[in-house]
């Protein structure tokens, strides 16, 4: 794709590499549409100053919204598993593969994301350490929300009260963790100046060649080549 830079003769040539399927992008935004109202209606029970929204008819309404959104939230992974099971398995495998490069990434992340020092960033596969951690926590959170939510919805009076109490507690713990993760995800994906391609990739399903090369070397060059390049660069630096 060629883009002419406004008010100049410069023409940028960008090669785009596909990253997400149409279904994945659609489900990502479905997930967002479900998660945000779930979090906001949950937050009402968390913040004493929002109490009036939990009372009476308002409270009944937010509980209905919470339930409708919960069904949507639970439906997204189920739809994904039905429609693109191979892609889903591939993703789960990728999410669960961690290596020593992830420790290096964690060390280099703050200097990079806060101070813009890219030199120490180790090569990463299609999803970097942070993205994979985010995904693992979200999957675990979905499981906890699913079990505890359904237990509170349909189990009241059936399960022993003490089990119900533990369900409330676990739901709250999952809430605190996933909402904090969401805030970080939102910041990095939407606000952070270096990550301007993330919204593009979730809209059009592609990232630019240069972005893939710099941020996901193991994906762009292949794992072996990327590691060789990293070692070479490291070797030169230490000499």
């Amino acid at each position: 794709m060629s883009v002419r830079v406004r008010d100049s003769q410069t023409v940028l040539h960008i090669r785009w590499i596909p990253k997400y399927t149409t279904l994945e992008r659609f489900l990502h935004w479905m997930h967002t549409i479900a998660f945000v109202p779930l979090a906001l209606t949950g937050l009402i029970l968390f913040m004493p100053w929002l109490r009036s929204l939990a009372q009476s008819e308002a409270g009944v309404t937010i509980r209905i919204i919470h339930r409708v959104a919960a069904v949507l939230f639970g439906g997204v992974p189920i739809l994904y598993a039905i429609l693109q099971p191979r892609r889903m398995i591939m993703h789960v495998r990728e999410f669960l593969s961690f290596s020593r490069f992830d420790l290096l990434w964690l060390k280099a992340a703050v200097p990079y994301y806060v101070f813009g020092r890219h030199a120490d960033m180790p090569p990463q596969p299609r999803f970097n350490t942070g993205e994979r951690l985010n995904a693992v926590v979200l999957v675990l959170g979905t499981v906890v929300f699913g079990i505890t939510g359904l237990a509170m919805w349909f189990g009241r009076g059936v399960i022993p009260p003490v089990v119900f109490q533990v369900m409330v507690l676990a739901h709250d713990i999952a809430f605190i963790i996933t909402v904090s993760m969401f805030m970080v995800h939102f910041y990095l994906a939407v606000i952070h100046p270096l990550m301007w391609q993330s919204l593009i990739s979730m809209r059009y399903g592609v990232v630019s060649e240069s972005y893939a090369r710099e941020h996901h070397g193991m994906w762009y060059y292949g794992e072996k080549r990327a590691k060789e390049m990293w070692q070479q660069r490291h070797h030169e630096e230490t000499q």
Partner: protein
Amino acid sequence: MADRLAMYIDTSKCMACRGCQVACKQWHDLPGSQTVNTGSYENPPALAPNTWTRIRFREYDDGERFQWLFLKEGCMHCAEAVCVDVCPTAALKHTPEGLVTFERELCNGCGYCGQFCPFGVPQLEVTNRLTGEAKSSKCVFCQDRTTNGLKPACVKTCPANALDWGDRDELLAKARSRVDLLKTEWGFPQANLYGELELGGLGRLYVLTAPPAAYGLPTAPKYPVVATLWQKLLQPGGQIVFGATIAGALAAFFLARRNIEMKEVE
């Protein structure tokens, strides 16, 4: 704080006429329900959204004598009321007189009160399981009567004089002397007082002629540990985590904006 009010319940005088059940339904406009004979005079079988008090029947044989125990069930109006703490709508409140009151209009039907109550008292009337529409309900010590100088309806109606209402300290003294009397004069060596210290002191003071467990009362009711963890640790902790995350992201954003040259970003 005004002097705490309480209900005195002398199970040794109760004859299970269940007049209190009727008076309660009448005063609060609670409909009766169709029940079936299960071979006991105990009826209805449990507390329900339309049954805020009821007499529980228990048979008790300690080896020496047989007793038919009658326990007037209902909200205990605990000083440390977990339902008040877990209620997200403040429909459940403490009054200065120690009543645990309930505002039906505020209730959103979450049902936490009934699930956390150590006595399982609040009853949830679920009108739609799918949407969760429901209303909780429980004994409110006839707040409308007792704040206007009247006794609760059940106390007023009790023909056996088993019930009394008034200043908690006075009723405590009355209960203690009654327990002594039952032990010494009436041949109930196991007579005891229930409710003096449990959960910070209950709003119901029971004179029992057998151990609490024989009545189906928890021997040592406890404020649920989960509720403490949830209310005292997790909720404030969560607020701190959310605040810190937002503050961290803001700080990172301003630092990043200062440090990152956008020209280098392709």
